[in-house]
């Protein structure tokens, strides 16, 4: 028993001596920390006695406590609470119970405290005996359970917000939910095409914007707790099938330190956000594909209607003999021409089907590229003449490779048709050459050109670089060119600027499998 000035410790009546003995027994045999304060009046309390358990649990030394004013023992954050509880016990003149969390030399402690006021008869309370039950372990378990429960609620709320297909808006809502639950600021970055981009930055205090950059470790695909000055930060990567697409960064200004539970929570949040991003991307991709298909159908309908209209009118005019004397021959030629146009159209559609299922069959034979080009030019002579464009051909002789003749004709015809169609009636240049074991075909026009941003897209099926309303065509020509050229081991590219014409360059190995 560590005490000073305990009532009845010296020269006291028998009754008090008995009390002291009882107190001493309690002190020595209880595992609860116990202390006794002396009520000094005018709000003053002084520690007069503590037991060993008290010293063990709190981490104080006896000389720091015994005879010290209450304010020197109780942590300053708790003084008001403790004083009010003392006053409550004094006023009630019976024991009171309360719970207290204290930052002590031994660490954070939770205790359930019973205060027993000591007085004689109707006299004033002279002492307060405090019995502390250490409930730290139990409280921590409860707190963790509460945290896990509220984390689960948070995650469920966040998941609901992320279900939106307007993903940037959804991530904004998620970040606003995360502040202040997870910290004082939250940012979401995207690392997509076109470099990193911060899509969301939420801060609890507008005067302190969320400025923390994404940590290199997070860029490497790992979650991390780190500090920037006095700011605690937690970063997690957003991964889709192992590929980094973004990051969530959270910061806390105050004394919040991120724990393993926080990391697990934000990692899970990151997984859900990544999934939502991927879902939105897939959805919009499917939507775009559907739109492209709808456009294609309406163009296909337009492309069929043209020749059918011509054939329809020509046949009816012939049958009803409603043409001028020299016209029937022209009408028949027109029917033949339109008939071929429809056949070509059907071939293109069938080719598209074959190419999609990878069933493009090549019949390889020795083919002279310059001859192919000449044949195609002859065939497209009419189109060329009515476009107003002139065509200059530069062909190195005997550029011969093992290719599919029919498919090579298609390649040249599609490129030349495009040059005629988009060439604004200006000159077109076609050249055939060979370097080492490769043949090169280039078709150049001086027409409307291709926006650099669209240069990859124009080789996709159904894509076109011009308005559907302005230009007909299925939008399959370049896709067919690319597929054929790739099947023969070659490549096609475009060099162009908007309004400055376009040059399409095809390069092919002379034999499949030779570079």
């Amino acid at each position, binding site marked *: 028993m560590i005490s000073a000035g305990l009532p009845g410790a010296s020269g006291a009546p028998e009754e008090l001596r008995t009390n002291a003995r009882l107190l001493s027994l309690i002190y020595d045999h209880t595992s609860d920390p116990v202390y006794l304060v002396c009520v000094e009046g005018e709000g003053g309390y002084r520690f007069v006695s503590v037991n060993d358990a008290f010293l063990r649990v709190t981490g104080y030394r006896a000389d720091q406590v015994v005879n010290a004013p209450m304010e020197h023992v109780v942590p300053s954050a708790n003084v008001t609470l403790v004083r009010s509880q003392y006053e409550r016990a004094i006023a009630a003149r019976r024991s009171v119970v309360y719970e207290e969390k204290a930052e002590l030399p031994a660490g954070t402690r939770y205790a359930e405290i019973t205060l027993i006021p000591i007085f004689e008869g109707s006299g004033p309370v002279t002492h307060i005996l405090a019995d502390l039950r250490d409930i730290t372990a139990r409280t921590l378990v409860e707190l963790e359970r509460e945290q896990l429960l509220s984390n689960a609620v948070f995650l469920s709320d966040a998941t609901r917000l992320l279900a939106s297909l307007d993903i940037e808006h959804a991530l904004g809502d998620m970040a606003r939910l995360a502040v202040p639950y997870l910290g004082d600021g939250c940012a979401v970055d995207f690392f997509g095409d076109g470099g990193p981009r911060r899509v969301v930055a939420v801060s609890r205090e507008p005067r302190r914007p969320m400025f923390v950059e994404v940590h290199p470790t997070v860029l490497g695909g790992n979650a991390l707790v780190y500090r920037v000055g006095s700011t605690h930060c937690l970063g997690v990567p957003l991964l889709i099938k192992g590929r980094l697409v973004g990051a969530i960064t959270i910061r806390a200004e105050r004394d919040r330190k991120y724990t393993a539970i926080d990391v697990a929570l934000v990692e899970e949040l990151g997984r859900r956000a990544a999934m939502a991003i991927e879902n939105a991307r897939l959805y919009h991709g499917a939507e775009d594909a559907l739109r492209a298909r709808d456009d294609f159908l309406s163009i296909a309908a337009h492309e069929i209607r043209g020749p059918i*209209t011509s054939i329809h009118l020509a046949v009816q005019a012939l049958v009803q003999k*409603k043409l*001028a004397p020299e016209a029937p021959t022209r009408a028949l030629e027109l029917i033949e021409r339109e008939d071929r146009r429809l056949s070509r159209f059907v071939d293109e559609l069938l080719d598209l089907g074959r190419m999609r299922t990878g069933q493009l069959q090549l019949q390889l034979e020795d083919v002279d590229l310059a001859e192919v080009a000449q044949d195609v030019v002859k065939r497209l002579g009419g189109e060329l003449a009515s476009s107003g464009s002139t065509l200059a051909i530069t062909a190195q002789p005997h550029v011969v490779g093992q290719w599919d003749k029919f498919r090579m004709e298609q390649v040249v015809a599609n490129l030349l048709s495009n040059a005629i*169609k988009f060439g604004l009636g200006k000159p077109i240049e076609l050249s055939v050459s060979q370097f080492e074991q490769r043949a090169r075909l280039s078709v150049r026009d001086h027409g409307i050109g291709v926006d650099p941003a669209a240069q990859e897209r124009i080789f996709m099926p159904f894509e076109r670089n011009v308005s559907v309303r302005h230009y*007909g065509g299925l939008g399959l020509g370049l896709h067919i060119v690319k597929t054929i050229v790739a099947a023969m081991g070659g490549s096609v590219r475009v060099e162009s600027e908007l309004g400055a014409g376009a040059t399409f360059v095809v390069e092919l190995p002379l034999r499949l499998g030779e570079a």
Partner: protein
Amino acid sequence: MNVLVVDDDRDIRDIVAMVLSAEGYQVQTAIDGVAALELLRAGARPSLILLDMMMPRLDGEAFLKAMRSDPNTAGIPVVILTGHPAARVKAAELGAAGYLVKPVELIDLVRTIRQAGHERGCSPAPP
């Protein structure tokens, strides 16, 4: 009465011109809206314009707008030629004198052109 046929499809232009010529109309053709506007600006005054809607460079709608902004040509009646299923609505919207939906029947072509011309008090020269 002369008709200006505006269509980027050469064969449609040709066959329509052949048919309308046989019906006694004088026919001029233009390969798109730009070419048609050039003709009008050069002084051509057709009694009627048969106008395709989907054309490169300047489409049917843009041509109509340009044509109507010039008081000299604003009053020329226009018959639109379109593949659009809602052609009637479109024609009303554009204030067209008539509409034809591709593929066109010969009898409809002749009748529509004749009616649109009649409203203007024009008729083909006797064949």
